[in-house]
């Protein structure tokens, strides 16, 4: 068993940096790859080495398998960590790494293939005795057949890209007249995102909870689960807030679902970190939804309550270590919540926005973790995901965690682009959230409570007016003073202090 000494991170943004952090703690050298848009991105500056791999659109860079493997070879990397998104669930990439003699930090091509295709995943799970949601058993490419199946299963139905993930190529259809446009939109989106426009169709569970279990399995047959993550707070089918434990969870249900998750991992001889996603209805019936054969965006909340560095585990498992993974050694301590900070406009249908970051103030202190990658002056490229940071908070109790999250969101200031920060604060203030009574319809059910209610006092507005006036007046004054040296650093104006209490 040869220890891994150098890892190429085939990704960008916060996850690239998060992986490099653990590498640094393990004395492993890091190799970054970057597209044209990312020359000055933080992952390039954080890594020991960095190589250009192509133009900004991801098919020409972050999805360019041969190029990435070539960089790994040239730089002498022993292993590639794919992060999430991009090539992380690409069986061919895992295959190509194997052929090149480079460790792919993730499961085998066979497992990715089986679990990556949602239909074969369903079949595999059904064989292993795991409950699944009623729906089609194969990928549909024919429009007429799809329409027939939709009618057969009965509304509401969910259309999903067979190769999909992250809400792309997904459509919920309630009424017969919406079925055809939705099908076409889903297929077009799937084709653009994954190069495959086949979809599958399943019964849509009303009032569903999206609960997933983190699993770890080594190459020696040991598997454990690291408890659940509640991910029901979603907008546009993308997660926005996650927490663990789930407010819905009972000890009995946790034990049962945990066992099923471990069985699912064992059924495919899994390797590394993975996630079993379930839909849970109000009666606590649960159905296998899909398996994510990679690290999840929301993995830090699991790290916080279990104390386990999941990236470290991934690396050790990939290295072939026989980890002492024993379920009875694992405990869930306290409560963790993650809020995803997107560059988007929550008051305009969560429209993603690119642009330049003006200033950032990160929240700090007890129980706060941020995983981000943008910095002051950074221009968010239009080519990639709009998530710019994750805020993870821990508290002794759920109540303490919510209050701490509110405090952290209050402290978190990103100016220059629109972000979801204020919207997330409103979620923390929402009675349904505070009481833990929510399902995946939370955002639409609480539209009223979540809109900007303009509660700034009149005097606060007046202070803004005064500030704008002073700034304007200074700019007018500056016309007569063009030779003045403008310091590059911000500098507080020096004025004598007047006793005024």
């Amino acid at each position, binding site marked *: 068993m040869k220890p891994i000494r150098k890892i190429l991170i085939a990704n960008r943004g916060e996850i690239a940096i998060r992986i490099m952090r653990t590498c640094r703690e393990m004395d492993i050298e890091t190799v970054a790859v970057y597209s044209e848009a990312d020359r000055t991105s933080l992952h390039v500056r954080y890594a020991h080495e960095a190589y250009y791999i192509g133009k900004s659109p991801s098919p020409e860079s972050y999805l360019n398998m041969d190029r990435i493997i070539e960089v790994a070879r040239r730089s002498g990397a022993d292993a590639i960590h794919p992060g999430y998104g991009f090539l992380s669930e690409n069986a061919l990439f895992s295959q190509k790494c194997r052929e090149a003699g480079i460790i792919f930090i993730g499961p085998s091509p066979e497992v990715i293939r089986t679990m990556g295709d949602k239909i074969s995943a369903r079949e595999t799970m059904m064989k292993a005795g795991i409950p699944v949601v009623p729906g089609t058993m194969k990928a549909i490419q024919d429009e007429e057949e799809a329409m027939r199946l939709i009618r057969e299963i009965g509304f509401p139905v969910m259309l999903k890209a067979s190769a999909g993930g992250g809400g*792309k190529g997904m459509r919920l259809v309630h009424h017969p007249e919406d079925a055809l*446009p939705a099908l*076409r*939109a889903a297929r*077009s*989106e799937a084709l*653009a*995102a994954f190069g495959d426009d086949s979809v599958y169709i399943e019964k849509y569970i009303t009032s569903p909870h999206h609960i997933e279990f983190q699993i770890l399995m080594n190459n020696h047959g040991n598997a454990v689960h690291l408890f659940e993550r509640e991910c029901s707070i979603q907008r*546009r089918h993308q997660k926005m807030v996650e927490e663990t434990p789930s407010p819905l969870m009972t000890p009995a249900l946790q034990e049962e679902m945990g066992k099923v998750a471990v069985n699912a991992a064992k059924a495919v001889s899994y390797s590394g970190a993975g996630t079993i996603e379930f839909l849970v209805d109000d009666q606590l019936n649960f159905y296998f939804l899909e398996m994510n054969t990679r690290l999840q965006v929301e993995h830090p909340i699991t790290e916080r309550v279990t104390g386990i560095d999941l990236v470290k585990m991934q690396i050790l498992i990939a290295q072939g270590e026989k980890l002492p993974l024993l379920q009875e050694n694992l405990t869930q301590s306290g409560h963790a919540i993650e809020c995803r900070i997107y560059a988007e*406009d929550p008051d*305009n*249908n969560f*429209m*993603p*926005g*690119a642009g330049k970051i*003006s*200033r950032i103030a990160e929240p700090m202190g007890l129980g706060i973790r941020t995983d981000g990658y943008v910095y002051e002056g950074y221009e968010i490229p*239009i*080519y*990639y*995901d*709009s998530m710019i940071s994750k805020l993870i908070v821990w508290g002794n109790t759920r109540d303490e965690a919510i209050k701490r999250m509110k405090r952290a969101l*209050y402290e978190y*200031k990103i*100016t*220059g682009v629109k972000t979801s920060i*204020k919207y997330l604060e409103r979620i923390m203030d929402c009675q349904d959230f505070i009481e833990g009574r929510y399902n995946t319809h939370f955002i639409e059910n609480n539209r009223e409570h979540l809109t*900007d209610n*303009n*509660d*700034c006092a009149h*005097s*606060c*507005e*007046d*202070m*803004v*007016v*005064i*500030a*704008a*006036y*002073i*700034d*304007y*007046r*200074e700019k007018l004054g500056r016309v007569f003073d063009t030779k003045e040296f*403008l*310091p590059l650093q*911000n*500098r*507080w*104006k020096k*004025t*004598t*202090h*007047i006793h*005024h209490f």
Partner: protein
Amino acid sequence: MSVEIKINNRFARVEVLEQNDNLLKVKVDDKIYDIDLMHTPGGTFSILEGGHSYNIELVPQDQPKKYTAYTLYKNFNVEVIDAESRYLLNRGGGGIDAGEKWIKSPMPGKVVMVLVQEGDEVAKGQTVIVLSAMKMESEYKSPFDGKVGKIAVSEGDVVEGNQVLIEFL
């Protein structure tokens, strides 16, 4: 010198009555404030008023005299309405669009689908065009019952931010 400032939809008139370094007496509409104001050239303001501590950050927008103002609790659109902008506003140039008769792209992206043709009757809320940006497709709906005028783009086109896509009659 008093100046008018537009904050979201409110117009306010400001005037500095007295100044002693960072200590100011300022009138906003009918209210007089004694404040202690410190700021950086970068637009970070710390204002103490009656003991209350206000933090404001001004970020200039593309257009001159326009800012986005960030407080710890809320964000505002702010515009200084001096003689020049008042003139433009009265002429109807610049300023605020009333009852837009078009759909614009909010940011750079790509046209995925155009679901209507020139001359089509559309209902309010009907999806007319689908754009893709930042890996996400967004459906744009008609803001009212009406008729499609000019369609300025085709499927597959790359569009700039703030570009007119579809006009209505």
